[in-house]
């Protein structure tokens, strides 16, 4: 007698998939934004946190069994998930569950991405999903994972890797793949110094670090890797290159959204954070976060609408190519190509350009802020100039390779 009900694709595929989001990265290259929080919890885009993009992709795709592997400084992340993501129903077999290192197997924290899975092999055993989707908690992109899962099943693949074309210059930062006509991966190099372009083109095919594994194959490969003392226990570096010749590995190119080319950003550095923020401000942004059919969920406090006022002295306020979040108040000031998070105050005569100001940042009267990332709770005094005198700025603040100035949370001007 058959005990399990036969389920038909595609809902069966989604139901039989466990999603594991790796959210444990230390984010040292995002410091000081990661001074008090894990990388996935870094605020982004006016009212989101970076993790909201991946989580929204999951629930919008119909993937609703989600384990988040956390590690460092997870308090902000835990609180955000509790506030914004307590939306799935355990009673329906849906969950978002955070798992800090249990130290069941190792008495250490995760050594690499594959080690994070190895150390959670008990959870895989408990869930026994047919497929395991492995995602990263620090990417900005919109993606429907359901067609990727369908392609994985259709190809009878052991591993399917989401892929995007990048320039040869960018390619040195990623895992680069070569594929045959059927998208089967025939070569994989992690962070190659001399990346191999797509035949007949200038671009390379990069791994997005978004994987669908057939769970049993995943377990075998991760266990083998765990026992290899020479391994760094990293998927891109150690596990995947070894699978290319042994297993059925396929690439799945990330489709574009509407008429836009495919967009995916790994928020690894302060510069990439700033650039991805500026991308949102383009007249026709490469990523459409206002698509009602693919909402990006987050937690929003109960704050009033944005207020824009004019005082009697400083002329009309000007806000151009910018995003302004709830609770903010702009009074006779100029804001250009900037993202203002919740509850910011821009005082009369102030000028803010190409900047990201997080929650409760206040820019005093006549102050000027240019090309800066300002973390929460910073009060910029009246008349202060930020981003105009590189020498003075360098003595006070961290400045990135691309010249972006970063002011840490709660910084007090002396």
């Amino acid at each position, binding site marked *: 007698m058959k005990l399990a009900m036969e389920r038909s694709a595609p809902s069966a595929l989604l139901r039989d998939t466990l999603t594991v989001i790796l959210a444990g990265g230390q984010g040292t290259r995002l410091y000081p934004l990661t001074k008090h929080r894990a990388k996935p919890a870094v605020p982004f885009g006016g009212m989101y946190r970076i993790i909201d993009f991946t989580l929204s992709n999951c629930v919008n795709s119909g993937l609703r069994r989600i384990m988040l592997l956390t590690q460092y400084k997870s308090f902000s992340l835990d609180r955000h998930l509790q506030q914004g993501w307590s939306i799935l129903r355990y009673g329906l077999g849906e969950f978002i569950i955070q798992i800090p290192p249990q130290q*069941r*197997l*190792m008495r250490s924290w995760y050594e690499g991405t594959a080690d994070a899975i190895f150390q959670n*092999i*008990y959870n895989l055993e408990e869930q026994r999903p047919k497929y395991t989707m492995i995602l990263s908690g620090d990417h900005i992109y919109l993606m429907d994972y359901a067609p990727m899962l369908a392609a994985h099943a259709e190809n009878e693949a052991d591993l399917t890797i989401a892929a995007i074309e990048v320039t040869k210059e960018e390619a040195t930062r990623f895992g680069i793949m070569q594929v045959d006509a059927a998208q089967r991966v025939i070569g994989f190099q992690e962070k190659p110094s001399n990346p191999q372009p797509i035949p007949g083109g200038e671009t390379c095919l990069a791994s997005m670090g978004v994987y669908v594994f057939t769970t049993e194959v995943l377990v*075998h490969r991760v266990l083998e890797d765990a026992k290899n*003392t020479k391994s760094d226990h990293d998927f891109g570096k150690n596990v995947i290159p070894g699978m290319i010749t042994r297993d059925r590995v396929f690439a799945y190119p990330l489709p574009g959204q509407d008429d836009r080319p495919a967009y995916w950003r790994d928020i690894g550095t302060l510069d990439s954070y700033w650039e991805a923020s500026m991308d949102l401000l383009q007249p026709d942004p490469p990523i459409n976060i206002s698509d009602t059919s693919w909402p990006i969920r987050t937690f929003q406090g109960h704050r009033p609408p944005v207020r824009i006022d004019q005082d009697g002295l400083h002329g009309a306020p000007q806000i151009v190519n910018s995003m302004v979040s709830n609770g903010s108040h702009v009074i006779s000031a100029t804001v250009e190509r900037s993202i203002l998070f919740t509850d910011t105050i821009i005082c009369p005569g102030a000028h803010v350009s190409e900047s990201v100001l997080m929650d409760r940042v206040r820019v005093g009267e006549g102050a000027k802020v240019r090309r800066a990332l300002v973390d929460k709770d910073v009060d910029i005094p009246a008349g202060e100039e930020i981003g105009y005198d590189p020498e003075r700025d360098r003595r006070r603040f961290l400045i990135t390779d691309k010249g972006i100035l970063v002011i840490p949370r709660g910084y007090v001007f002396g």
Partner: protein
Amino acid sequence: MARILVIDDEHTLRLLYQHELTQEGHTVDTAGTADEGIAKVRDTEYDAVILDIRMPGKDGLEALGEMLAERRNIKVIINSAYSTYKDNFMSWAAEEYVVKSSDLTELKQKLAEVIGR
């Protein structure tokens, strides 16, 4: 000749394995509980560990995880009277899975293979 650890809660089985494997030229240590076995793995670098699963207290699968934490490249042969654990992901961390039998031929053969790897 290799250095082998046998972890099994059955005293007579430990004696039998010790006798048989010593005759094959191996040096054999034994442990009657998972914790005793883990402690031995911590102190000694064995060429292979023969591990029972169903034991009072800590079972063999849990012990396997803890032994991996001690020595990532440890070679373990699961030796259980039951084949049901073959499906358990954790058992896949072992090199081999041999179901217990009065005839030790298969166990000895797998042991030789594992040591040779």
